[in-house]
């Protein structure tokens, strides 16, 4: 899946246009060459203004590469508007959006069960959202790898305005975890605070499997 969700940030004054940044996260390796002046200095400088955003994009890619192994797994940025974009992108198919954190022991205990659900799923989509900040992402990756979930569809909170991110999934959610949104094909959302063994989740899965 190539398109990232809106990389909204907690500092619009720095970031500017989220759409531009969106693309930037997925610049490919060979774009690095773009960091080097191609022609003479004068020509190059005249291009700087026009290509400023692109250069920044390339630098982003460069930064990602410099990050190396820590970000080998693709945690797509989950920012403002992400929940709506996710449900839109999966419209017409049942979707589970599962939020979890490495600072949440119950989340970690049940990750293997989520791995099993993800491996055996039929007829519905599942997306995992890690709510930790970037400092904990390597730890999150290790946890996912351990339970065999590294190949799943992963997002990571990329915005400190967490109240907004919570609100968009459920206006009553204060951030308790694990938290799961069960999204119907028509976009209707039922949310569950607590474990994978919650009757709402069990029933939802049962219905999907029965079909």
């Amino acid at each position, binding site marked *: 899946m190539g398109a990232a969700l809106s990389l909204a940030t907690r500092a619009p004054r*720095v970031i500017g246009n989220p759409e531009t*940044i969106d693309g930037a996260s997925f610049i490919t390796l060979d774009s690095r060459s773009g960091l080097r002046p191609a022609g003479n200095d004068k020509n190059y400088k005249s291009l700087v203004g026009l290509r400023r955003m692109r250069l920044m994009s390339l*630098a982003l890619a460069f*930064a990602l590469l410099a990050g190396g192994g*820590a970000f080998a797994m693709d945690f797509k940025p989950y920012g403002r508007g992400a929940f709506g974009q996710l449900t839109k992108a999966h419209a017409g198919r049942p979707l589970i959006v599962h939020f979890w954190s490495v600072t949440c022991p119950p989340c970690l205990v049940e990750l293997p069960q989520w791995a099993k659900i993800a491996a055996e799923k039929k007829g519905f989509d599942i997306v995992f959202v890690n709510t930790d*900040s970037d400092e904990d992402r390597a730890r999150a990756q290790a946890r996912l790898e351990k339970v065999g979930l590294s190949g799943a569809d992963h997002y990571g909170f990329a915005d400190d305005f967490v*109240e907004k991110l*919570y609100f968009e999934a459920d206006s009553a959610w204060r951030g308790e975890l*694990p938290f799961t949104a069960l999204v119907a094909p028509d976009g209707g959302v039922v949310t569950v605070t607590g474990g994978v063994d919650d009757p709402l989740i069990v029933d939802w899965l049962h219905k999907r499997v029965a079909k």
Partner: protein
Amino acid sequence: MKRLALALMAFAASGAASAEQGAPSADAPKDAATPTQSTPPAAMSHHPAAACADAKVDCAATAVPAFAKDGRLWVAFSVGKSLYAAASSDNGATFSAPTAIATIGDGVIDAHGDARPKIIALKDGTLLASYTTRPDKQMIGTIFTARSTDGGKTFTAPQALLAEGGQRFDSIVVNRKGRIYAGWLDKTHALKAKAEGKEFLGSGVAFAYSDDGGKTFKGKSILIDHACECCRMSGALDKDGTPVFAWRQVLDGNVRDHMVAKLSADAAQATATRVSDDDWAINSCPHHGPSIAIDAAGDWHVVWFTKGKKRQGLYYARSLDEGKSFSEPEKFGDDARAAGHPTLVAAKGRLYRVWKEFDGTTTTIAMQMSRDNGKSWSATRVVAQTLDASDHPELIAHNGAAYLSWLTHKEGYRLMPLPRDEKSAAAPQ
């Protein structure tokens, strides 16, 4: 603060600048420099520093205040892998250059939501900072303390409260004689049980005390087991000079309701009682701890969040008999605005409670005050708001006045005096 996006922008900015100079090899972003420069650039790229990576409180995610004897306001905060304290002589409007207390090599400093570096000011002018680090590989913490006896110019090398096990969510209370009590959530019993293949819910509740201004802590012991391990503890000083702590407990049936315990003077005994039977049976991490305050009359006041079978939202209860019994929980805050993260403070015959609300766009700090020890509360008044990311609200009392301490992304750090009388507290918003 600390998000990948911002960090990448920091790299992008420096990368673009490098390109303009025809020097593609990216320098480490200058604004991400740590005071000791002990973190190599390679490690930094694994844990990118935020674009706002200056050593100032406005770049932090959490800020905890303390008033020193000389009237200066100190805040403890972390930026990236460094912990700082900074002082303000104008109640938070401006801060002096911060003092770096520690820079960690690997792992993270716990500074998010309920977990936060703290600072307390002792009567003799000593400052005691505390913070928790978590290593890269394991999900356990170590609590460190560092002291300053020169007015915050320098701090001692940080000392681990305990070298093994796992500790988080410290809460420190100082009595009038200068004895420092520390409470924290301790994973030692849980780790032991895990090693033995046994089930163990939550963390232990541990305590210790110090009579030498925080140089050493004595009597470290886990007195109660099965606290909810991802919610903060809160502490307050009782009338008799012993501390009382409140936390979320994991009770039978995975019920995560609140407990309080008064500690004996030697920190060796604690009697825990339940604040409220909310019946929140949930195998989850609320990340949402309680707050306790004790007024001059010795009445205990507790606020908390629950999503229990019996009640949901923010609640308040008080105990007039040192925790033996609590009043019927009283609801406050607007559920339709996701009311959360309540906290309390007592200041000169007044009691204040504040909490966060969010309507999808604006985060507000709502406040109520009580002049009759919590029997009745003023109308709710919004005392601050913001349109972007924000820290939990903190309350602090100093010289009989109460203040809201709040760090927000757009406005930066703010210390706001709360109204002293019912009339202004109930004034229209």
